[in-house]
């Protein structure tokens, strides 16, 4: 890598638009020094699917917590310290031996930031947003998640009012694991519902 000396490329049109926005918003006094850096740092390093994994693991080991989580997701998740933008109206939907849940946002990219971080690229793409409603089993299979024919698929459309988190089934053979070890098993995709554990 030539780190010492290089000539940066001129800004692209989109980079220029973002720079213009930043100048305008800064002029309006809406962008305090360091604010953008701090927000992006938090979403790149602190706020991510590990938070959701901790929620799931707690629900697996603590039946009373699981009950609170399914009854009032927002408050139960806040108990573990996860709250904030895009996490005000959380509904947790539970996978069972007969029901598989999967989450989509058909209109844009609504997603539970405090528990899953920012959405992956495919979640925001038009094919996922339209096909998950139209043909969930087909799309899930293409994504490597085969749902048995006798299992129902429930598709949940996120919105301004509600953000969904899937509570996956606890895998068999994990009785001896600690809560922390269980959390390490939980993937982001299983909490969106495009994978099973």
């Amino acid at each position: 890598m030539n780190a010492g000396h290089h000539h940066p490329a001129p800004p692209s049109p989109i980079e220029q638009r973002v720079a213009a926005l930043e100048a305008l918003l800064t002029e309006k006094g809406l962008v305090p020094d360091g604010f953008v850096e701090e927000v992006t740092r938090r979403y790149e390093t602190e706020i991510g699917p590990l938070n959701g994994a901790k929620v799931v693991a707690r629900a697996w080991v603590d039946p009373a917590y699981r009950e609170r989580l399914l009854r009032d997701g927002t408050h139960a998740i806040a108990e573990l310290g996860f709250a904030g933008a895009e996490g005000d109206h959380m509904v947790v939907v539970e996978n069972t031996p007969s029901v598989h849940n999967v989450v989509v946002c058909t209109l844009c990219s609504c997603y539970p930031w405090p528990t899953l971080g920012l959405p992956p690229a495919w979640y925001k793409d038009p094919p996922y947003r339209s096909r998950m409603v139209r043909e969930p089993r087909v799309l899930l299979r293409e994504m490597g998640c085969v749902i048995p024919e006798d299992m129902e698929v429930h598709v949940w459309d996120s919105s301004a009012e509600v953000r969904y988190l899937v509570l996956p089934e606890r895998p068999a053979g994990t009785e001896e694991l600690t809560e922390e070890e269980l959390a390490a098993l939980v993937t982001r995709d299983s909490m969106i519902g495009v994978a099973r554990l």
Partner: protein
Amino acid sequence: MTVPDLGVPRRNGELAFDAPWQSRVFGLAAAVAEHAYAGDWEPFRRQLITAIAAEPDRPYWESWTAALEALTGMIDVVGDAHG
């Protein structure tokens, strides 16, 4: 352009941004939600829905940028009305 690997913990997710301007425009929208709308993302979300519906195949962060441009224009109007 890609973000260099800075050893950022990706946990079990993936890095959310592919280029610096994307994290920049995300942070700017957060600044607007926080400081112009008291933490409410709904005004931005409405613009994002409109921007995506207008050009469904446009890359996501470009729609995000268009949404923030539209919202910023509306803040102008509010400012003028009160100014």
